[in-house]
């Protein structure tokens, strides 16, 4: 008996992919050069050749549960050697974006953040929210005197907004990821050969060292930029956690006076020790933002330089790179303006923009490009559980 396989192409999905930047995908003629030149593609069921034909046929269901598209680090060795200019590397980047959107919970947030055309909507939410909170608490205005950011936007208001929303965002992210995990692991016909935790640990180690990223041939520079952004983000996350710790546990408030009696008591009355802690804290904050800034600039520089051979990337990626850079820039500028006694309106304005962008990065994490760090971690972990990952 002849076996019959019926495909139901999702034409709308194909159109969406092409509109989002994967306009080259139809050029692919399935020669499989890409699967061979990719340094990260496993021998068994390699990518990205099969993803290219799935995308051409609009097999959305298959692609949404693909772990392989997350193994791709967009080296674009494939795009360099592709004989048709089908740019598999870029197509996979768009597919990853679609998967983030597809698994987003709630779905409409995926649409708002996922489509760069909706950027104004996405920014309007924090702007309106902030103005409402400030107006209701009677803080809407430019405070007199020296620039102290907490006078303009009291820290506990910020926390009032960010802490519950971040927690909500984490829950949403968890729902999105569990959707993704279910999609990815069900119906693959493959049984895991290794446990979740060891695979996760191995994955995290790999991510910390960027071992996969450094296997890229075609645009090695990107791994340097990514390392900077990556550790910049981690540093700033620690900074934020420490700031919360200082405020709520130590009750030590900005600008962190070294003669605060409660704090002095903790450090055995040594002003020098408190001073050192303060300096270390400030150093971490500034070093992290410098890394983020430098990394962000490099990311954009690489993207511009690579326009020929390597990645063209979607506006989704561009948007995020831009926002990361602006967060770093506005944060840094706000501080400079404060210290250098710029007009209050400028300093507070920059600070406000900074907060809006921070909102974008933190609260929209499950839906933006940043979501990739969880999706990728989860997908690589699953791949390692299946033992189909390449040797690094």
């Amino acid at each position, binding site marked *: 008996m002849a076996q019959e396989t019926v495909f139901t192409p999702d034409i709308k999905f194909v159109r969406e992919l092409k509109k989002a930047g994967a306009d080259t995908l139809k050029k692919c003629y399935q*020669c*499989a050069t890409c699967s*061979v*030149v990719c340094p990260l593609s496993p*021998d068994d069921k390699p990518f990205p050749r*099969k993803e290219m034909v799935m995308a051409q046929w609009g097999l959305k269901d298959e692609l949404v549960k693909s772990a392989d598209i997350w193994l791709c680090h967009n080296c674009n060795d494939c795009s360099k050697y592709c004989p048709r200019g089908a740019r598999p590397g870029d197509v996979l980047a768009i597919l990853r974006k679609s998967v983030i959107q597809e698994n987003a919970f709630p779905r409409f947030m995926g649409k708002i953040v996922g489509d760069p055309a909706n950027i104004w909507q996405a920014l309007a939410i924090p702007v309106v929210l902030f103005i409402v909170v400030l107006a209701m608490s009677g803080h809407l205005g430019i405070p007199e005197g020296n620039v102290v950011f907490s006078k303009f936007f009291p820290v506990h208001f910020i926390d009032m907004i960010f802490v519950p929303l971040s927690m909500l965002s984490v829950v949403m992210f968890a729902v999105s990821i569990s959707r993704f995990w279910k999609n990815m692991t069900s119906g693959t016909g493959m049984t895991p050969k290794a446990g979740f935790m060891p695979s996760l640990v191995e994955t995290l180690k790999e991510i910390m060292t960027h071992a996969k990223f450094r296997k890229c041939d075609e645009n090695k520079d990107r791994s340097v930029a990514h390392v900077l952004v990556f550790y910049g983000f981690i540093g700033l996350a620690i900074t934020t956690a420490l700031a919360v710790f200082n405020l709520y546990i130590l009750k030590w408030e900005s600008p962190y006076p070294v003669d605060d009696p409660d704090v002095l008591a903790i450090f055995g009355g040594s002003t020098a020790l408190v001073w050192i802690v303060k300096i270390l804290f400030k150093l971490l904050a500034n070093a992290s933002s410098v890394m983020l800034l430098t990394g962000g600039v490099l990311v954009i520089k690489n993207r511009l330089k690579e326009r020929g051979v390597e990645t063209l990337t979607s506006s989704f990626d561009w948007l995020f790179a831009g926002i990361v850079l602006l967060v770093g820039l506005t944060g840094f500028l706000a501080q400079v303006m404060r210290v250098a006694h710029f007009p209050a309106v400028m300093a507070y304005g920059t600070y406000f923009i900074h907060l809006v962008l921070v909102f974008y990065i933190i609260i929209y994490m499950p839906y933006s490009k940043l979501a990739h760090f969880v999706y990728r971690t989860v997908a690589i972990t699953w791949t390692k559980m299946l033992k189909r990952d390449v040797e690094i």
Partner: protein
Amino acid sequence: MSAKTILIVGGGISGITTAVEAAEVGYHTVLVEKNPYLGGRVAQLNKYFPKLCPPYCGLEMNFRRIKTNPKITVYTSTEVESVSGQEGNYSVRLKVNPRYVNEKCTSCNACAEACPVERPNEFNFGMDKTKAAYLPHVLSYPMRYVIDRNACKDQSCDKCVKACAYNAIDLGMKPRTVEMHVGSIVYATGWNPYDAARMDNLGYGRFRNVITNMMMERLASPNGPTGGKFLRPSDNREVKKVVFVQCAGSRDENHLNYCSAICCMASLKQATYIRERIPDAKVTIAYIDLRAPGKYEEFLEKVKADANIRMVKGKVAKIEEDAATGDLLLEFEDVEGGGKIHERADMAVLATGMDSSVKDNAMLSFEENGFINGGKAAGIYSTGVAKRPSDVTTSIQDATGMALKSIQSLVRS
């Protein structure tokens, strides 16, 4: 008064065909070839389609038609320096490069025996050497030796002159210019194999056992560098496992952005060369699509039926060398089976495509793919592979057609 002569540029199978066909209808033809022999790429083949006979059966017949027809003038070692004028009256200047051997040559080989200098044999793609005094190939037309003065390091050496009993060698020969008027011109300038070294992932030029399909024809040929034995270049060991790499540069926007039309059939044919001579040899053909148009499909089916020939859909995109053995490690994805294949082979044959040999000529108009569409002015035509990548049969049919076109041009003007 308009000229009643047709100039044919290029003395391969297409140019010969146009020249002979037009002359046999009664028109004067001038056949110009830059090599010191006629026959072009066909002369380098071991066998050719459709009948899989050695090239000489077709070429010899044509050489005979040339020899017996006083209306054909042949210039070898000759290049076209300039063309001007219009249909019916083109002024042409030819540069005839010295052969250093005149028509008294009997091809006795005494000069080559006496010659102390060797040169890479370009007819065999550098896989062996000839003396500086040499016969281009066993059935050269004209059957006359040549002296490669670029290879004579010692320009005062006259050992060949002394060895020649017929006074056939004249080392003082100078280039000469020939001017003529012709009514129409046919460009049959053919092709060059695409430079395989430009595909940095396939290792040609770095790994000795990666060869091109044209080199394979020479290896298979009884008058080739190995006398027809399939000895791989690194250690002259007979091959047991060969992989054919299809579309090596063709259908690739980074190289030749078109199908070269002949490489699929060439590799299928070459697979049979190996299988006919080495009973236990194994052959893999890795392809994107196999193109066997028309009757060639029967040939494809015949090759497919051989249990020792495996065809895999998937392009070879990486070749590495095991430095200790000289073996090659080829990597490709089996698209139908779904998995990467790492294949060890004695030798890899790159099915390199056809690159137009004339790229820049103010008189000609070119297709987007670099092949010659025809003249910018009336009365100039192109034929054979100079016009489009094609096999011998198609080239000959086209060349016959162009004989008629060029005659019509003469009659018209």
